[in-house]
């Protein structure tokens, strides 16, 4: 031991250092444990559903739990149509805003607008759902002459808005990470800034933009409160573009609306956990794909730069 030399430092017994290191390591692994536990609980609580409900019933298009109809297709369809609609809104507006902020806006404007977009990301979804219900849906009903404004379209618009901050912030990071020399080279060859954005900067940042899109979709499909409040919650299987204008019901809204009223360990309870598993698996696929894109991009950049 070198106790003679480290007299100025409080001499901590190595035992304590060992303990703290062990605690930190345990905390480090906690995320894996939580994901595992969440998956485990969803599986345990939903297995009885597969025993109690016939597969043909689960895969039917009728959701009417009171009479033991547990067809999840209308709910998956509802989530799907709203998520597609939301993506069609969030992607162009999100990427467009990111390009504007990163490539066009003067510095001061960029520093002002970025926090505002971040604020949108922080607004509770129940507040957006509340406004969607009181302001957005009534206008949609009048403008589009619908029987009710509580529709898939209202959900898609709201979800698009909710997904935008995710898309903006990740695509902006990706655009920001494109080396300045790329743009300089393009401009020096006589390209306009517009051509540089479309043919050089954006393609160079494409995997980041792809990640942004994936995570935006993930955010949209998992959103609950806002969707539940504006979509009218009718479990009807959407079959075409026209259904965008009628009420739908998503997987998330079904869980949120019905879990509070079912008896624990009833069939209905287990089926709701089964829907939870579907949502869990979708988010797993979306997020792993998105992160795989990022990892691959990092590697290919390292190859280019080395």
């Amino acid at each position, binding site marked *: 031991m070198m106790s003679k030399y480290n007299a100025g430092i409080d001499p901590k017994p190595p035992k304590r*250092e060992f303990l703290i290191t062990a605690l930190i390591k345990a905390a*480090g692994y906690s995320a894996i444990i939580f994901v595992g536990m969440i998956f485990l609980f969803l599986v345990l609580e939903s297995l009885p559903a597969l025993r109690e409900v016939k597969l043909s019933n689960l895969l039917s298009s009728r959701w009417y739990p009171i009479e033991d109809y547990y067809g999840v297709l209308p709910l998956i369809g509802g989530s799907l149509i709203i998520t597609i609609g939301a993506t069609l809104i969030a992607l162009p507006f999100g990427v467009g805003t990111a390009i504007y902020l990163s490539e066009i806006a003067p510095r001061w404007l960029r520093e002002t607008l970025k926090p*505002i977009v971040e604020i949108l990301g922080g*607004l509770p979804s129940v507040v957006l759902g509340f406004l969607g219900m009181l*302001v957005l849906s009534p206008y949609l009903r009048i403008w589009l002459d619908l029987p009710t404004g509580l529709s898939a379209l209202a959900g898609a618009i709201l979800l698009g808005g909710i997904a935008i901050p995710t898309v903006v912030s990740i695509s902006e990071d990706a655009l920001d990470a494109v080396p300045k020399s790329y743009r300089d080279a393009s401009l020096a060859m006589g390209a*306009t800034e*517009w051509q540089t954005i479309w043919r050089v900067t954006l393609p160079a940042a494409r995997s980041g933009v792809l990640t942004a899109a994936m995570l935006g979709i993930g955010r949209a499909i998992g959103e609950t409160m806002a969707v539940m409040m504006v979509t009218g919650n009718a479990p009807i299987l959407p079959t075409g573009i026209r259904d965008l204008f009628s009420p739908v019901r998503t997987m998330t809204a079904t869980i949120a609306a019905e879990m*509070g009223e079912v008896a624990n360990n009833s069939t209905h309870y287990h089926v709701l956990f089964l829907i939870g598993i579907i949502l869990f698996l979708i988010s797993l696929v979306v997020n792993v794909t998105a992160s795989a894109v990022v990892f691959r991009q990092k590697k290919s950049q390292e190859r280019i730069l080395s």
Partner: protein
Amino acid sequence: MTMKLSARQFKQRLGFSLLTLMTFLTVVPIIGVVIYIIYLGFPAINLEFLTGFPREGMREGGILPAIIGTFYLTLGTAIFAVPLGIGSAIYLSEYAPNNRATQLIRIAIINLAGIPSVVYGLFGLGLFVLFLGFGTSILAGSLTLSIMTLPVIISTTEEALRAVPQAFRTVSMSLGATKWQTIRKIVLPQALPGILTGVILGLERAAGETAPILFTVAAFFLPRLPNSPLDATMALPYHLYVISTQVPGMPIKIQYGTALVLLVFVLSMILIATAIRSRARARRQW
């Protein structure tokens, strides 16, 4: 402007205008939402509204139990999520070897961040409320919200820790400090503003969430204050949901008033976090 534009310059102008318009259409509604709620909610705000209990089937009186409930839930979330999140971030930034196990941890964190909030609600119901027998309680809700908040705290804290220059660590350890001493006395204090920002933003998310507390904490109507962590409680986001969808004949003023209180609660957290971040950036000497 008589200068003739070439086709490609014209295209550029058109494109830039389009992008400006899109940004405008993204940003203006955000400001609009905030102003609209302030405008319509402000008339409802008075002392009774903020400090009173709901009366007449929530159509009159105040929302104190919901405010206090959200405060306790946020506090409870902080108690569990902050030490665990910071510990996890320290591991990833200072200890973790670059191997498959670490990669697995990162994938797990990314997944936690992506799991829909209502699925956290299911999990909290299954594990904390039923399996561990906490019942619908502040404890069960705080634990559920903590796990949901964890990825936000971990990733922002890790980023803050990594931003501390490596030289600081090298110097500290070359003076004889142990690894933990270096982390506690050098790295953590330097990263503190970044960590605080991440923690507050994580808690802000927890404060505004409704879906995870639907089946784990929230009471529809409970006009008294909770007096133990095992009590159920009202909470602002759930209360807003209840009065705007479940109670017929609810005065619109009270709905907007509740929305405003929730908005002020979360916006002030965002503002504090942003202020800490920008102050730290301005003062940073490395």
